[in-house]
């Protein structure tokens, strides 16, 4: 997923104002995946949301000290989001690999068993020990069950985390924090229209 361009940034512009614009765009990119990513089947969107979270986190890491205190908290929250989406992605990658290996092992076993049967009219169960991967089938099936079940648990964790972020007003609080300039006086902030931090349910 390509990051959205932030147009009009100029080398001579004040650093915090430029980074504020970039963070705002990266934050919008993360939030834009919801509610689509609430569907556990949206594998691509969940992966792209993870990339978007990663981009937001890495830009925030550069500049937390330039913004209000919630920016630092937002790094931790974004990392938690990135981590759970990463673990979901790992399951989404490994599960088809396990399924493919199981199918491959089964196909090789069928071939070996047929070869052991020679030109027989029917297949006698006695030839089954000729299957080289026979002992492996159960473990592969167990792995697939484990990965699928874990993926469901992780997805529930992701949903709960997103709900927490919404409840604590993650988006609004970060938008507010990147407009704050801690080194300026309170009066300056008020002049600049920074105002009062939004409440948690914003």
């Amino acid at each position, binding site marked *: 997923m390509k990051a959205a361009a932030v147009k009009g940034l100029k080398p001579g512009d004040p650093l915090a104002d430029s*980074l504020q614009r970039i963070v705002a765009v990266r934050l919008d990119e993360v939030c834009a995946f919801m509610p689509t990513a609430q569907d556990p089947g949206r594998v691509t969107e969940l992966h792209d949301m993870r990339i978007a979270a990663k981009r937001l986190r890495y830009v925030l890491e550069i500049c937390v000290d330039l913004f209000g205190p919630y920016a630092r908290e937002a790094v931790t929250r974004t990392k938690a989001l990135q981590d759970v989406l990463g673990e979901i992605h790992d399951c989404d990658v490994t599960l088809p*690999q396990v399924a493919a290996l199981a199918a491959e092992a089964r196909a090789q076993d069928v071939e070996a068993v047929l070869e052991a049967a020679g030109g027989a009219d029917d297949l006698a169960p006695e030839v089954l020990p000729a299957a080289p991967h026979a002992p492996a089938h159960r473990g592969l099936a167990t792995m697939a069950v484990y990965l699928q079940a874990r993926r469901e648990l992780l997805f529930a964790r992701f949903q709960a985390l997103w709900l927490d972020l919404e409840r604590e007003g993650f988006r609004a609080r970060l938008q507010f924090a990147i407009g704050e300039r801690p080194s300026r006086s309170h009066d300056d902030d008020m002049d600049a229209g920074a105002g009062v931090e939004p409440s948690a349910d914003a």
Partner: protein
Amino acid sequence: MAKARAIESLHEELPFATGAALTVRTRTDELFAHAAGVLDTDDIERVHDMRVATRRLRAVLEVYADCFPKDEHKAVLKTVKTLADALGARRDPDVQLEDLQAFAKDLDDADRAGVELFAARVRAEQREGNAILAEALEAVERADLRGHLDALADAAEAAEAAA
């Protein structure tokens, strides 16, 4: 995972390009500080740390893109991306093997053969990934990535001075 280094002397009123130079220098140092021993498959955290450092550097190069000369920026970004991909080719099987180890710890004996069959395949991918990484590290050396990153930081400072 290594924590991101703070960017010293960063201040809100600094010009954007000065921030770019300071940040690229810090993230470049971070990247090369994590380069030692990454081909050692017994210590997988080294690859992880270098991969994260590469991602952080890449993010910085994208964030400050407007402060760098276009062609040089594009070439450096391509080299960093190639390195990141190579680190991923090693890291992905590293993680899978670590997960498999944890998964197999309390497993029924009857399940072990299947897990081992999968693990053997992942170990082959890890060896392949390590070869890709070794090649990418040599390419980074040949391309003098560090020198080009320093040049980008210098160019950002010059752009600010000219602005």
